[in-house]
């Protein structure tokens, strides 16, 4: 089972491999992408893949004369598979200067239609040939003496520039693909009187120069001249190691273990690299030709807002917020985009600062290319209005345009804002300062309507308070919480006093309730007829005393202490009632102290009714 799966997988992989190998490909390449009028370049269209191929039909480009010069075919057998490569050669003769694009060509290969990539050819005029040699192509291809295997080229697009102007520069390092170069020291532009940006590797391509194939590595940078005059840029210098065929008389490298040159057989590099017998690694210095550059000074009469920016820029401004109070900050964002020396691009200046307070700006730069010549620099400035304003001030930014050879000033559009409120607090402070006691250090403020900027500070204090002050808030201090003990104790006292008063009130209420209960019981018993006279008069007398005690609530009279006078006074009795009450008390005392044997055994109903009537009529 496992063997079957393995076989099927192997077959599928082989099918995929063959299917991939069968697909034809096409490439097109120019021997040089730059040339001059009358100087022909070679165009090669290479078709790789099985089957028959058909070349493209006539290639017609206005300004270029393109003729087919021949076809070559190459067969290759690899991994039991045959591959054919057909190369169609053409000669391209420029008839006039300009930038030409050879459009994609359709090639039929293996029954499929393939399209070549579009190719661009830059053609300079015939007179530019000499200038191209001196400036556009700073150094002609200068292969080293080591069999013309490597070269360096400094490409400067301009012959003249202004002081501070950023000039993009290309360094092209070409190597024969067979030398397998290893760069030891990166290329460096030598010379004085200019600054160089950081070198950036921008790409690698294969080119055919003077009929020889080269692997070309391109570096980009930018230079800026520091002073006026005639300069010589370069040469570009770099160090690399290349592999070249071993010379017959070249000494064999010694092994580090072969200290005494004993011709140790293991020191033979064959044991490290068998193919090293055929080639050796050679350090070379790659050097280009220098390029002449004329640097002109900037013209005089630069605008006030010019800070040294040279190039071509645009400016956009925005503000946030647009509705503020006097003294509130407004953030103004100024965006300067374009191409030039951004390190000298400063924030735009305010043309009329009156009524505004400005703060130092912050900036950030976002570059659009490798060397920082083109990009966008954004400034954030904080302004605060000192008075009511309807628009932001106009911001101006000046630069020198080397193409037009003149200064250009960009001005922002006035941005509408709403500023509300009174004058800025500065003037209030000055007024306050002016109102304080006079001192030699005090300066009078000028009567200008705009907020006055004071110049000097007020006098020194000569005394210190005895007590030390603290930054900690009062509630974080111990004394504050200790002070709270006073109202806390007062509150506790107040609560205690209330509790005591309530308790006292409750005791009195209980006493009154007990007396009321006793009075009700006594009245109930007095209405019965079975009581003896002694009991009856005792209860009647007690009832009078209890009612008197109840009636004299504020005086809190004990019922046992009530006598005739107290009861008469409490109930404000008239003479008759007073006599009847006295008789009641006397009868009570008589029955109480004379014994039960004296007098009748029962009371008459009339007597009971009179006593009840007397007691019930006792009202305060």
């Amino acid at each position, binding site marked *: 089972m496992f063997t079957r799966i393995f076989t099927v997988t192997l077959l599928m992989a082989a099918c995929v491999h063959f299917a991939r190998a069968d697909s034809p490909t096409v490439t097109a390449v120019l021997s040089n992408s730059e040339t001059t009028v009358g100087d022909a370049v070679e165009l090669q269209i290479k078709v790789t893949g099985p089957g028959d191929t058909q070349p493209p039909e006539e290639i017609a480009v206005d300004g270029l004369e393109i003729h087919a010069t021949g076809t070559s075919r190459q067969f290759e057998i690899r991994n039991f598979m045959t591959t054919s490569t057909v190369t169609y050669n053409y000669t391209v003769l420029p008839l006039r200067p300009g930038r030409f694009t050879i459009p994609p060509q359709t090639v039929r290969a293996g029954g499929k239609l393939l399209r070549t990539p579009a190719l661009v050819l830059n053609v300079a005029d015939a007179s530019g040939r000499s200038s191209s040699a001196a400036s556009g192509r700073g150094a002609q291809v200068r292969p080293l003496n080591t069999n013309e295997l490597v070269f360096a080229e400094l490409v400067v697009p301009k012959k003249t520039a202004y002081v501070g102007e950023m000039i993009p520069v290309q360094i092209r390092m070409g190597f024969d693909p067979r030398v397998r170069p290893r760069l030891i020291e990166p290329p460096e532009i030598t010379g004085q009187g200019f600054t160089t940006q950081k070198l950036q590797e921008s790409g690698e391509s294969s080119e055919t120069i003077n009929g020889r194939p080269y692997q070309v590595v391109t570096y980009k940078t930018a230079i800026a001249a520091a002073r006026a005059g005639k300069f010589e840029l370069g040469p570009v210098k770099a160090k690399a190691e290349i592999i070249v065929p071993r010379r017959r008389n070249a000494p064999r490298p010694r092994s580090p273990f072969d200290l005494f040159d004993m011709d140790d057989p293991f020191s033979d590099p064959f044991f490290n690299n068998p193919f090293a017998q055929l080639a050796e690694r050679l350090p070379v210095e790659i050097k280009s030709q220098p390029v002449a550059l004329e640097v002109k000074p900037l013209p005089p009469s630069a605008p006030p807002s010019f800070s040294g920016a040279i190039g071509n820029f645009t400016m956009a401004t925005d503000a946030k917020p647009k509705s503020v109070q006097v003294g509130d900050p407004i953030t103004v964002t100024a965006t300067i985009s374009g191409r030039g020396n951004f390190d000298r691009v400063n924030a735009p200046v305010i043309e009329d600062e009156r009524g505004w307070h400005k703060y130092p700006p912050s900036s*950030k730069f976002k570059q659009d290319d490798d060397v920082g010549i083109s990009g966008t620099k954004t400034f954030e400035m904080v302004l605060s209005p000192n008075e009511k304003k309807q628009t932001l001030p106009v911001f101006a930014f000046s630069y020198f345009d080397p193409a037009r050879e003149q200064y250009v000033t960009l001005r922002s559009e006035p941005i509408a804002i709403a500023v509300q409120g009174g004058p800025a607090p500065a003037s209030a402070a000055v007024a306050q300062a002016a109102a304080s006691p006079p001192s030699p250090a005090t300066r009078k403020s000028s009567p200008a309507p705009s907020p006055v900027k004071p110049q000097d500070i007020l006098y020194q204090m000569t005394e210190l308070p005895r007590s030390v002050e*603290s*930054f900690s808030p*009062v509630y974080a201090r111990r004394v504050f919480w200790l002070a709270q003990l006073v109202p806390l104790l007062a509150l506790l006292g107040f609560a205690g006093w209330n509790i005591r008063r309530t308790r006292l009130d409750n005791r009195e209420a209980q006493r009154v309730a007990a007396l009321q209960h006793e009075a009700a019981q006594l009245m109930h018993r007095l209405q019965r007829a079975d009581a003896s006279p002694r009991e009856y008069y005792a209860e009647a007398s007690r009832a009078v005393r209890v009612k008197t005690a109840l009636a004299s609530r504020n005086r809190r009279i004990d019922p046992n202490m009530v006598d005739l006078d107290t009861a008469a006074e409490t109930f404000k009795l008239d003479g008759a009632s007073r006599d009847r009450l006295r008789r009641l008390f006397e009868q009570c005392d008589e029955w109480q102290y004379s014994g039960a044997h004296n007098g009748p055994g029962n009371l008459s109903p009339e007597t009971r009714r009179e006593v009840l009537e007397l007691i019930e009529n006792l009202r305060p």
Partner: protein
Amino acid sequence: MNRQAAADRDLLRRASSGSAGTTPARRDISPNTRKPGLANCDLAVGRRALVKRARSIVMAAAFCASLSVSAFAQPDPQFSKANQQYAQGNFKQAIAGYESIVRAGRWSANLFYNLGNAWFRNGDFGRAILNYERALALEPHHPEAAANLQIARDEAGALEMQRSWPERYLRFATVNEYAVAAAVIFWAAAFGLVALIFARRRSKTLIALVICCLFLFALSIYSIYTLNHGNKGQGLAIVTGKDVQARLATADTANSVLTLPPGSEIKILSTRGDWLYAALPNNLRGWIPAKDAEPVRLRTSG
């Protein structure tokens, strides 16, 4: 002082009138002196005693007044020496003198105000603003500090933190005033509640008063919290370095958020190593080197 003088005048008036009644002088006269012939002499003696007593009272009052004056202002030799250095134009020595008093913990608004002036004269507007702010933190109604602070801000172009709207409305009183008010209102509410609990009949007025007190107490606590945690609260700090960049991260190479001139206000939110994370003017936030900013409110050591 006026009360004392009035008391003295009253005493003298009563002594000179010699009126009968309950005056102490009258009580001191023995029964023997009530003889008609000696009455005037005794009265004169009484007057002299009264005058003498009044004089001693006046002197005692003057002594108390002098003591009370000395409680408010005290000549400090170190402070006076620093003031002299300032007057002679030796601002660095003056700064050293004032700062030694600061280090000793004898803080006062006048001390920080003078120190701010010395820094101003020395050309360091950031530290001048810091010390004016400290003077105002100790004594919010210090007119000289407020005036000089504005001057220093204008000179330095310092950025100010914007107060939130509750802060703007609540800043008519200070945190300490709100704290005292909260305490008074709290106790008033507590007394009202106790009275309500034990009252036989609960008065609607008292209930309304207690509710009002509780509301004011809550408002005071909210005010304290808002002012303490606001942009000008306990976290307020002043940028003392020059051309300080607030950055997006704790690295000198991080992108800049805002350039802060010396004297600019920030609100410290947190600290990480040598960096402060702070709220910046214009509602931004960023990291600032800790050495470039100092808090306004100093903490008592120990």
